[in-house]
């Protein structure tokens, strides 16, 4: 019970932190417009290829990618936390830093879901492939699963920063490029050889995207299995993240690296 309260508090803390940068207006004008343009760009490439199937493939892929992208911003959140110097104080408190860190960025799941769903709905409308309502609701739910599992992956990547300094840009970029290329956003999954598909299947986004693609065409029952797989992948990364932060905090206690220093 207490844990839930702490998670809720941490969520709000993160959300308030976020609303200190973005207001609804700036979110719409600075961020949302940009991501809609990005998705439209890829959909346009599909249209230039003259294949409606291709257009839809690229449109859906790049829209859902946004959920994963926002999840990867967890890396920045962790780095910010580290720079703020709160880590030693968290480590001296009764709530484990692993819980605080994972809960604190969870607003990104909401942000990712909103960004991806919004971009998908708007762009699909622009490109004349509107999603009828009940179907859209299922799609949004599936996107939320992707956003959550990508966030778990992002927070793990971010927690690496606690142990290994100044690799923030590398972590974010490698993470993003991997997700972008391997997970079936612009290139179908079966394009890659078996071992790479294997890797892709344990990354966030891959299975969730399959599920969304199915749901978009109305096959929502078929979408259930990959969606569950996506959720499982997320839980896996989350577990790994909790273990990692716990190990890094333990290491910090031993080496004296839990410090104010950035």
């Amino acid at each position, binding site marked *: 019970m207490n844990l839930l309260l702490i998670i809720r*508090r941490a969520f709000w*803390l993160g959300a308030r932190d976020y609303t200190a940068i973005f207001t609804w207006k700036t979110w719409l004008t600075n961020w949302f417009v940009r991501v809609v343009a990005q998705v439209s760009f890829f959909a346009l490439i599909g249209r230039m290829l003259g294949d409606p199937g291709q257009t839809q493939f690229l449109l859906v892929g790049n829209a859902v990618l946004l959920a994963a992208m926002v999840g990867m911003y967890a890396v920045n959140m962790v780095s910010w936390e580290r720079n*703020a110097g709160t880590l030693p*104080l968290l480590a001296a408190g009764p709530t484990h830093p692993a819980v605080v860190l994972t809960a604190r960025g969870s607003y990104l799941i909401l942000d990712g879901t909103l960004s991806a769903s919004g971009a998908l709905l708007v762009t699909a409308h622009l490109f004349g492939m509107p999603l009828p309502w009940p179907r859209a609701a299922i799609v949004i739910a599936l996107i939320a699963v992707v956003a959550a599992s990508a966030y778990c992956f992002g927070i793990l990547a971010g927690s690496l920063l606690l142990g290994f300094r100044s690799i923030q840009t590398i972590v974010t970029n490698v993470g993003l490029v991997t997700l972008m290329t391997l997970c079936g956003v612009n290139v179908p999954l079966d394009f890659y050889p078996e071992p790479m598909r294997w890797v892709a299947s344990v990354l966030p986004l891959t299975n969730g995207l399959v599920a969304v693609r199915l749901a978009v065409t109305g096959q929502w029952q078929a979408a259930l299995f990959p969606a569950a797989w996506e959720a499982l992948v997320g839980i896996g990364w989350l577990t790994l993240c909790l273990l990692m932060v716990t190990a890094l905090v333990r290491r910090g206690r031993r080496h004296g690296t839990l410090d104010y220093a950035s």
Partner: protein
Amino acid sequence: MTVVTRDAVTLAPFGVPEPELQYSAGTPAIAAVDLVREYPRKRKDPVRALQGLSLTVAQGEVHGLLGPNGAGKTTLVKILSTILLPTSGQATVCGHDVVRHGRDVRELIGVVMGGDRGLYTRLTGRQNLEFWGALQKVPRKVLRSRTEHLLERLGLAAKADARVETYSRGMKQRLHLARGLIGDARVLFLDEPTMGMDPVAAREFRKLIGELRDEQRTILLATHDMTEAESLCDRVSFVRDGTVVATRSPHAVAGLVSAVQGLELDSADAALAATLAEVPGVTSVTTDGATTRILVRSQDDFPRLLHLLADHGVTSLRTLRPSLEDVYVRLIGDRGLEV
């Protein structure tokens, strides 16, 4: 002949040590035994920040840590607050081992590190406090009123809803203190908590510590401010090179170097001054307007000096007791800026 101390208390025989303060028996709030902490260095021997430090702090005691830069005060505070593991040795907080039962320790303590880092700067002071309170598992209703109370008590009420990045350094430091208090900790570790505070705020802070003491909280206070230590602490420990060299009540520290450092006479007789300067054991004689100050090397030099003064008809004099700062300088050694 009347011998009057500076604070107008009759000084009976010289050099009688004041009794150590007595505290209630039972589990000490803090007990450190033979703590050693080494920091590894590249291609060099490790730094030994603590070299077998031992310290006991009773429940409800306000205990000061004094010592030069690099003495190991922060390292000790970190070990006690479970942020750092000792290389060897043992430490307990309210009977809980800081290594094996860190979790229990963390339920009991509040930590305030000096400086303005460690806050969520994009959030308001109130939001910071409410968040840390939640992490400290303070029930919601209590948290709201306690946040209000602490903001008020630390003079932050007017800035409560402004983002912390707009706070001055001293205000951040005050917020830190409020953060350390939000969990209602029984044991507080304060590492240079008044760093960056203006004098008025620092005085308010001292008042606050007094109140916390009245609430029977235990406080370990690392500070470079002698006045602060003198006015707040039940006892102080002098830390040098990773060990405690002495622990006393601030009023008894004088006994560490010598209970009385010298005498002050209401007379500026040049001839007498010249005679006094010749007395073995007298290290300096200075006259200034209507008074003469005589400093001696040790306690043993007093009887002879007093006889001489009596022979010269001096009947009124004051003893010069060293301040905490004098003791600090003598005990720690005047090492200048060397660390």
